[in-house]
């Protein structure tokens, strides 16, 4: 069982999707129910990972699966190479966890083409899970790009008014970055081949062992970093995000925020940083600078938004700035903070998008000015919204604090101290924009007659939110459940990055020269 567990987790949703295709298209309930069951089962299948104590003791890859996939002698080799460690573990869990929640949230909001919606959701889940556990760069790239397809349709078909622009922008923006990364991946492979290092396919662990000369690292890192930066998204390549988020249907926004953005940060942790440690040293100040700018910039822009969803989208930019800052701190605390903040952001921002979805379903508008005084009409909603707001603001005791705190501690310990000081000011801005929004939406008198008859959350909607709230407090109060299992992996990653000798430039320079002859 354990031998195939990862494959099972990845492909179970795909299997489910195939079945969905055979359900009659007008049987709305069955479609949604079946999809819910599939996503729940996927979650259950993935639970053994979360309970496996091996992650707490060993930082390496577990649940390895390795099959030869494409093998054309010296020219090419790619493998079906999967594995999960303490870092990807929680992202996998986040994905499998957030999916049932998402499906449940579509009950009322998705009415047209349910079949397509559900099929795409499940396809998306497979792609996301695959990207998190792939250890072969080629395989990773396949899942990475595959993610774009369902999301493109989710935004484009079920999105808002400006959905076409948003969908196309999302697709092309992210694809441009990944295409450059593709060139870098191929280059890396042939570098390995030419330099005679023993490799099996595009296995990332083999590439870790490469001693790349600095000049090669420099460009390769740029290509990887650019691609991931778009996905994160980091300032200034973030502008696809507000559009995509705003136009996407609730479920799409939730998945986009909760999981897909994590791909970028995960990509840094797993690929861009450990593969090119020397170049990383050069770029850390710039990237950390961009992260910090992202925090302040995202917050300031979020503050002025008139659309709730756009506000949350910009707040994502700020939150992911914390993640990146923590990761770039390159120490245990920062890294752990970054990773747990990824999970946190998934939960909090996911919840925020669900919340926006709830009111959008009721009022079909997201303009802040349309609301006001909802707390009267929807007390349960108000409470949940409040908790999520404060989780997003990073109140101690909720998850947001743990992540931000660890990331900032890490940054302070590293030589990103001054960046960290500026980043810390983000806690002020977060309070400003979130509370201001909460006030304008929820507090005050009901001024708009359209809001008079709003119904409070239904049982189903509460059921959607409760699991998220549970984790808000769980991670806030006892993050050790998660930290314990991620620590060994982080330690191993850092050791590997720090112990790696500075590349012997002379030895491998000819290989680079051979590969980059100016022609």
């Amino acid at each position, binding site marked *: 069982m354990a031998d195939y567990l990862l494959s099972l987790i990845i492909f179970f949703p795909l299997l489910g999707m195939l079945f969905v295709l055979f359900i009659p298209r007008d049987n709305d309930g069955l479609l949604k129910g079946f999809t819910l069951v599939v996503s729940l089962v996927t979650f259950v299948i993935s639970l053994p990972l979360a309970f496996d104590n091996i992650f707490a003791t060993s930082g390496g890859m577990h649940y390895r699966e390795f099959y030869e996939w494409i093998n054309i002698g010296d020219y090419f080799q790619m493998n079906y190479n999967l594995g999960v460690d303490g870092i990807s573990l929680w992202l996998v869990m986040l994905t499998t966890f957030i999916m049932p929640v998402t499906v449940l949230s579509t009950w009322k909001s998705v009415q047209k083409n349910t079949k397509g919606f559900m099929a795409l959701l499940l396809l998306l889940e497979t792609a996301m899970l695959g990207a998190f556990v792939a250890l072969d760069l080629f395989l990773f790239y396949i899942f990475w790009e595959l993610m774009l397809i369902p999301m493109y349709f989710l935004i484009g078909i079920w999105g808002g008014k400006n959905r076409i622009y948003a969908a196309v*922008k999302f697709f092309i*923006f992210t694809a441009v970055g990944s295409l450059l990364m593709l060139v870098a991946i191929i280059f890396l492979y042939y570098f390995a081949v030419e330099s005679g290092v023993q490799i099996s396919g595009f296995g990332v662990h083999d590439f870790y062992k490469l001693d790349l000369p600095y000049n090669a690292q420099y460009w390769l890192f740029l290509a990887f970093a650019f691609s991931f930066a778009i996905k994160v998204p980091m300032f*200034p*390549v973030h*502008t696809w995000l*507000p559009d995509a988020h705003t136009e996407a249907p609730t479920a799409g926004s939730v998945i986009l925020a909760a999981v897909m953005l994590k791909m970028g940060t995960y990509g840094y942790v797993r690929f861009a940083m450990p593969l090119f440690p020397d170049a990383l040293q050069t770029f850390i100040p710039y990237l950390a600078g961009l992260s910090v700018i992202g925090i302040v*910039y995202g917050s*300031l*822009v*979020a*503050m*002025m*938004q008139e659309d709730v969803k756009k506000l949350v989208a910009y707040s994502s930019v700020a939150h992911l700035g914390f993640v990146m800052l923590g990761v770039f701190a390159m*120490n*245990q*605390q920062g890294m*752990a*903070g970054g990773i747990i903040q990824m999970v946190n952001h998934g939960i909090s921002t996911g919840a925020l998008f669900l919340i926006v979805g709830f009111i959008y379903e009721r009022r079909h508008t997201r303009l802040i000015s349309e609301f006001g*005084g909802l*707390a*009267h009409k929807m*007390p349960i909603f108000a*409470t949940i919204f*409040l908790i999520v707001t*404060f989780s997003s603001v990073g*109140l*101690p*005791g909720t998850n947001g*604090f*743990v992540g931000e*705190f*660890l990331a*900032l*501690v890490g940054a*302070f*310990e590293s030589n990103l*101290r001054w960046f*960290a*000081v500026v980043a*810390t*000011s983000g*806690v*002020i801005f977060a*309070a*400003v924009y979130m*509370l*201001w929004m909460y*006030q304008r939406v*929820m*507090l*005050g*008198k009901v001024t708009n007659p359209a809001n008079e008859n709003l119904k409070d959350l239904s049982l189903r909607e509460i059921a959607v939110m409760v699991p998220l709230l549970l984790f808000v407090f769980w991670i806030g*109060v*006892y*993050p*050790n459940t998660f*930290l*314990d299992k991620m*620590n060994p992996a982080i*330690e191993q990653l850092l050791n590997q990055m720090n112990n790696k000798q500075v590349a012997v430039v002379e030895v491998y320079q000819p290989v680079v020269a051979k590969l980059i002859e100016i022609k």
Partner: protein
Amino acid sequence: MYSNLWLIPFFPLLGSIINGLVGKRIKSEKVIGGFATLLVFFSFLVACQNFFRLLGDNVKTHEIVIFSWMSVGKLQVDWGFLLDPLSAVMILVVTGVGTLIHLYSIGYMHGEEGYYRFFSYMNLFAFAMLMLVLGSNALVMFIGWEGVGLCSYLLIGYYIEKQSAGDAAKKAFVVNRIGDFGFLCGLFVLYWTLGSKGVWTFNFVEIAENAHLLETGGLVVTVVTLCFFLGACGKSAQIPLFTWLPDAMEGPTPVSALIHAATMVTAGVYMIGRMNILFAMAPSTMLTIAIVGAATAFFAATIGLAQNDIKRVLAYSTVSQLGYMFLAMGVGAFSAGIFHLMTHAFFKACLFLGSGSVIHGLHHAYHHAHLHDDPQDMRNMGGLRKKMPITFITFLVSTIAISGIPLFSGFFSKDEILWWSFGSTRGHWLLWLLGALAAAMTAFYMFRLVFMTFFGEQKTDARAKDHIPESPLTITIPLMVLGLLAVIGGYIGVPAILGGANHFHHFLDPVFGKSLHLFHIEAHGTHATEYTLMAVSVAVAVIGIFVAWVMYIKNPELPAKFVTKFAGAHKIVFNKWYIDELYDFLFVNPCKKIGTFFWRGFDVKVVDGIVNGVAWVTRGIGSGLKYTQSGYLHNYAVAMVVGVVMIVGFYVFG
């Protein structure tokens, strides 16, 4: 031994959760309020038990770890509680005053919408405050620190329909967050500096033990303490972050009493006390604190002179009194500061509750007469002492206490502070002077309040004035208890010069003694000086009272004349020195402008401009190129020939 410590914060948390979840279903207000009060009272009992146990214990510092919170490499943070004399005093104050105010709220909040919500929040507040004072490391303290901020937000904004309440709540939280920013920065710098010397810790005990690793008076310790002080400023409403506290009076009065007078706002003082060793190591920070404290005491008092809203007067008075406490901390009178914190908790809570009682009565009367006058405006009051005798007496007692009249609690604590500010090795006579002036003003405006409210003729609308009742027992019992405490609370800390043993000081010695001793902080001077100063401070208080009596009882038209004569000064003071407007101008509006610019200017125009521009240019090139495809055979043939010529030419001549 002290393993039941966790029960102290746990009870209110339990109450908060239960009331929050099922309170809505419970129809009986008594059950809700009674339950909440009872849980805080349980906490109080546990606190008492632990306090007395500590009294009899030789070891004065106890740390109880519940479980590990975060553990990442060398960063280890526990859910841990610390019981030492300082936190023992604090838990007593918090649970004791807290219980009374909960009890008071049962009656005061009668009939309000969301009754259960109120008590849930109040209990949550008690929980957070107890976490703050009990936390054994800076992070658990920070939970409480932010938690009280959260509850403050919730309770200030309790009247969700009121726009001003929402604004005030948000302002409170955001300003607090500015302070928290400082707190966090200080914490990080401290953690990193100590860590680089081999001690990675957030634990207070360990910090205190290893503080010697830092250079006394050095840059690091100064920066750290200044950062912490910024945090304290935010929480305790000191210059420049005091503006939220007066606005916070939008909340229900018990909230003002509990949070914005007795407990939360004193968290900053407590925090300085908790880390006294670090502060003692940074004389320049201490000086800053003293100056800020004195200035706040003075400055807030000036504003208090001219306010007409009963709660606002009290609010500025609180700011001013907090200034005193900071002055005390700044000159090294740590135990005096905590002492004043405690006495202030008694009399200020009593004052707020008293004002609440008045408001409650007036509100009742107005409601009865279907009027919409402002029940908080003192110009609508007057002569209430007959209508509300209990309220009046307790209020008067507390006012006397705050004015620093001998034999009342405020006298002992305030006097000790003034003495230290003059005579301490870290004091200065100018600090004393500011403090004394503030004391005079305090006496003046507090008595102005008493005179306007309880004396003179009744200025309440005729239709309402006969319907002002005395408040019910749930309200008056806390008033009486607090009034009593306001009188006698000072006797545990009677200074030696007045023949007392200053038990309070000795009790706290395990916490503060070390730093006082190590850094030679002491107040020295002759008895004569001390007596003189005492006399002076009493004298100015009496003068203040006298002036108030002249202006508001003897000669009620005097204030108006005064106002016209010094119109400019009055306007400035009345409008709180235009600080809010200044902040709007300096920070709020620029932030909004920058935000808008970033969004509409940078994001939309520049970044998206480039993105869309690239797309536009690409399409443009395409549209241009497509006309090469003219449809004419000749053009195609020409293109081919050109291609052939180029290629062959390249081969042949290239």
